[in-house]
């Protein structure tokens, strides 16, 4: 039950994109088509979960014992960068069209504040290893959910006659804001 609440909390109530406003860059950049959004979500789920696992271990078995907590940010980024490189290689091999479609946004997962955010939050919220991994998985699922929902909406409203000044990013941002408002409906779901 606790784990279900943890996942629901991370995915819906405190959705990383729509409630915490982290990871907006890929959210805007990759959500133009549902196919790329799904591909990106898979990549992020992989990176987030694995990164949380490894960074938690590094924090509690290397940083804390040697009193090196001030290296947290650098060490975490190092791990995340390596993982993203790994994911890039895998995607390039497994699905070249997806690799082309994601373009620059794939390596940008490294600087995605949502991934670093999850890693750091795990420490701040004092989760144990299992909690940390489940929290990360939930967060990644929420990220993917927001991305796919938004991509679905964008594919549709790109067809509309949008006033010149709003075309492209401006209307996407307005819509993202409204989507965030919608997700606010989840607040209070998990006490």
């Amino acid at each position, binding site marked *: 039950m606790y784990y279900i609440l943890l996942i629901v909390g991370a995915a819906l109530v405190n959705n990383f994109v729509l409630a915490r406003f982290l990871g907006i860059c890929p959210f805007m950049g990759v959500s133009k088509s549902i196919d790329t959004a799904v591909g990106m979500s898979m990549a992020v789920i992989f990176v987030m979960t694995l990164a949380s696992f490894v960074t938690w271990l*590094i924090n509690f078995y*290397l*940083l804390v014992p*040697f009193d*090196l907590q001030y*290296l947290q940010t*650098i*060490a975490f980024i*190092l*791990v995340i*960068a*390596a993982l993203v*490189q*790994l994911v890039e*290689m*895998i995607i*390039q*091999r497994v699905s*070249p069209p997806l690799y*082309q479609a994601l373009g620059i946004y794939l390596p940008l997962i490294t600087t995605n504040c949502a991934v670093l955010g999850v890693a750091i939050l795990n420490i701040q919220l004092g989760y144990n290893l299992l909690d940390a991994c489940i929290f990360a998985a939930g967060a990644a699922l929420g990220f993917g959910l927001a991305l796919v929902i938004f991509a679905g909406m964008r594919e549709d409203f790109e067809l509309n006659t949008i006033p010149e000044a709003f075309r492209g990013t401006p209307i996407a941002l307005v819509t993202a804001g409204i989507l965030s408002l919608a997700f606010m409906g989840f607040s209070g779901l998990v006490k």
Partner: protein
Amino acid sequence: MISSILLLGGIGFLAALVLGISAVTFAVKMDPREQEVLDQLPGANCGACGYAGCAAFAHEITVNPEAEMACPAVNEKALEAISAVLGRSLGGSAPLIACIRCKGAPAETTNRYGYIGPKDCRAAQIVAGGPKGCQYGCLGLGTCEEVCPFEAIIMGEDGLPRVIESLCTGCGKCVSACPRGIIQLIPRTGNYWVGCVSKDTAKEMKPLCKVGCIKCGICGDVCPFDAITVSKTASAEIDQDKCQRCGLCVSACPTGVISALSVPRKVHIIAEKCKGCSICEQVCPAEAISGKVKEPYLVNEGKCIGCGLCIEKCPSDAIERIIS
């Protein structure tokens, strides 16, 4: 201090190990020349080459030693660069340019009915065969302008499309988009074409269009190279292979329906006539005109593409073509 160096170094080393192993396991063989070729292509993904986009064509021409240069939009420089990268000489096809074979602007033609609907020539064509009286002429709703990936066609003030000669790459998208088949690709060296494709006899055409080919046959008679065919039910056709560009047909044609590719003549603003109203600056698609309101405006000849829109729009008749 040491511990921090050791720690970060250690993590880095482990990461490098893992990545090194995966680089070998997940290696993807990609020819680096492909990217170089792709950089030389225009990137408009117009599909004229027959492939799904510039990336697909770059891939094909790199991996297949027999593949021919199918992109109509590469210029000389790009062609040389691609040939250098791939180590084989690629012949470009003779550059083509689109010409609009209809001079029947709304002012010169009659309509069968009032059309109300989407502003698309193809959509209008399916409504009782189109609103224009002449079944062969330009419908003037601008579909060719819409589909051109290089923005080389603009709808003129008179309702007829104009090809911007310096931007057209001969990709042929407009040719397939036009429901009437009015647009034809001719070699850039071929200067003359007939601005009418009507198959109506002169008598049938009279009430429909004032400027079409009347099929008098004079052009066919004067052509010393036998390059023109014309009959009672087919407008004059110039065989671009035989045409030697002597221009006799143009002077002989009584209706002026035979047109010529213009040498891109730039424009020049006559300072004495210019009132400084700034209309030319606003309409110029190449941003080649600038100036201060109420003072004579100036054309940057380097940027001018010779489209002539400013000449049309100038209320003071202050702009003219020049040979530069």
